[in-house]
């Protein structure tokens, strides 16, 4: 890319891809923005009219909105906590040499390949079901009353289901980071008198900082839009107990046929996601600098 000529050529060659991506992004965004200012209900076709900020007012003052916002943050935070702590622990375990390491690693990673709807249904019917579920059977084995997980602690249940799916991802990334840790550093720390816990706190954990940042950032992006697990298990209920923002928008659009309100919700979701992103980058982004 040394000369002006090659730079111009490079830009020219890049432009189709860049333009395509731009259009791909700008058209849906523009239409969402446009719809969000319309009174647009699928039950009343042909009655679209400019509504000003009415849709936003409606969405933001909806009592379900605050619940959904809190639920979204709890869902993201809960899953991050479980996957990061559990991922570090699992990665430390399977980094040890033991017999059958290969097959164990494969098994640990496999949940990531199970699609969300399937895993949620398996959890719903085979683990958390109050009559047929494994948890209920275990509870009865101890003489306790079975818990109806999805009815009594719906959000926690969904956090557990989603965390199960994301734990392998965190484990995998942390495991590769662990394996890149210089063994001589650990040996030096050992000679310097550091015990296993000190080595973990002073050597291993700082070394993992960058991998953990990547895990937190990538997971946050996907966890803000968790939808399938909620749809096939609780349908956001009971009430709004397990409704998050994506599910609320879905309900607005396809259960109440209110495209305008749902579009306003979509724009709000974009803004919220960006606020979360700014906070995250402020907090942990410096770990990514070389």
């Amino acid at each position, binding site marked *: 890319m040394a000369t002006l000529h090659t730079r111009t050529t490079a830009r020219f060659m890049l432009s189709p891809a860049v333009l395509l991506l731009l259009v791909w992004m700008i058209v849906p965004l523009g239409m969402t923005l446009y719809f969000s200012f319309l009174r647009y209900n699928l039950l009343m076709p042909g009655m679209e009219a400019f509504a000003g900020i009415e849709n936003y007012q409606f969405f933001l003052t909806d009592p379900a909105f605050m619940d959904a916002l809190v639920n979204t943050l709890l869902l993201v935070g809960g899953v991050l906590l479980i996957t990061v702590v559990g991922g570090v622990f699992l990665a430390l375990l399977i980094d040890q040499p033991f017999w059958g390491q290969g097959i164990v690693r494969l098994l640990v990673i496999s949940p990531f390949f199970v699609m969300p709807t399937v895993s949620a249904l398996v959890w719903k019917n085979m683990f958390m079901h109050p009559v047929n579920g494994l948890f209920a059977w275990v509870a009865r084995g101890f003489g306790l009353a079975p818990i109806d997980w999805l009815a009594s602690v719906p959000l926690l249940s969904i956090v557990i289901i989603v965390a199960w799916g994301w734990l392998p991802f965190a484990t995998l990334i942390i495991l590769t980071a662990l394996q890149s840790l210089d063994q*001589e*550093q650990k*040996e030096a720390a050992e000679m310097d*008198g550091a015990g296993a816990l000190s080595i973990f706190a002073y050597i291993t954990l*700082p070394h993992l900082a960058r991998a953990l940042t990547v895990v937190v950032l990538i997971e946050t992006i996907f966890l803000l839009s968790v939808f399938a697990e909620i749809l096939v298990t609780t349908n956001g209920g009971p009430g709004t107990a397990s409704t998050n923002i994506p599910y609320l928008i879905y309900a607005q659009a396809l259960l109440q046929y209110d495209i305008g309100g749902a579009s306003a919700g979509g724009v709000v979701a974009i803004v919220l996601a960006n606020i979360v992103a700014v906070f995250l980058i402020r907090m942990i982004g410096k770990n990514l600098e070389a």
Partner: protein
Amino acid sequence: MGAITLDKVTKAFGTMAVIPGVDLEIADGEFVVFVGPSGCGKSTLLRLIAGLEDVTSGAIRIDGSDATRVAPARRRLAMVFQSYALYPHMSVYNNIAFPLKMAGQDKATIRRKVEGAARILNLTDYLERRPGQLSGGQRQRVAIGRAIVREPAAFLFDEPLSNLDAALRVNMRLEISELHQSLKTTMIYVTHDQVEAMTMADKIVVLNAGRIEQVGSPLELYNRPANVFVAGFIGSPKMNLLEGAAAERHGAATIGIRPEHLEVSTGAGGEWSGVVGVVEHLGSDTFLHVQVEGLGPVTARVGGELDIRHGSRVWLTPPPERLHRFGADGQAIRQAA
């Protein structure tokens, strides 16, 4: 205090015996160099002493007390690694302070000791930097600083200079030797470079395939190598080792003569005669690679001003008192005294 004794120490990885059995005495305050070709077990031996590897059998005693099963941190040894093994996320100050912090010393003591070590090693201006911002030589000094502050019974160096460029290596070699003079602590130093071994050691341990070939002072090894391996390994350029009829004439299976001891003449007369192949002029010396008839290539070292060119005929004479004679088993044949 830092006297270390190895008593019939062996080490096997699985069924592979890396160290078939080593006995060694290291006196307090000695500078001992383990030298040998790569894969000879010298680093493994150092790691056994450090406690980073478990011995398969035998005993390691430090100051008379058995340390064979003692954890590395409790052996009061400090190690400088080949990769330096600095903690990349900590400042130089925290790197040097780490062993003191782990030992639970109070902040004021740590500060005093770290600053003391930094002064000795010229690191005072770099204490707030990260290892990534330092040059190779500075990193090396931080690694040494981290070892010094512990005030260990002995220092262990694992090829510490192999990552430095040639000029810096000579400098650091001097600095480590000076450090040994001022601290008077036992040092065990592993290297594959016989020049480092010769220049720094009080005592050299030559290792080959996990066995000790010879132990002695640099000049002892140079003047009286115990066997063919040591003779070929110590000294630069390498000793000429000759077999066959020329050796039999001196009553040995192999004879050795150092290039610097060969007498070279351009006029007629001498024990061997040959044609000069490559001539290497170093200024102070000239190395002649001579193809001797019936013997093969022989290297000779002569003064820098000698005018000998490619293709000249020269005569070489080994002075008998400088000749090393080895039996068929490779061991040196000593004159019956």
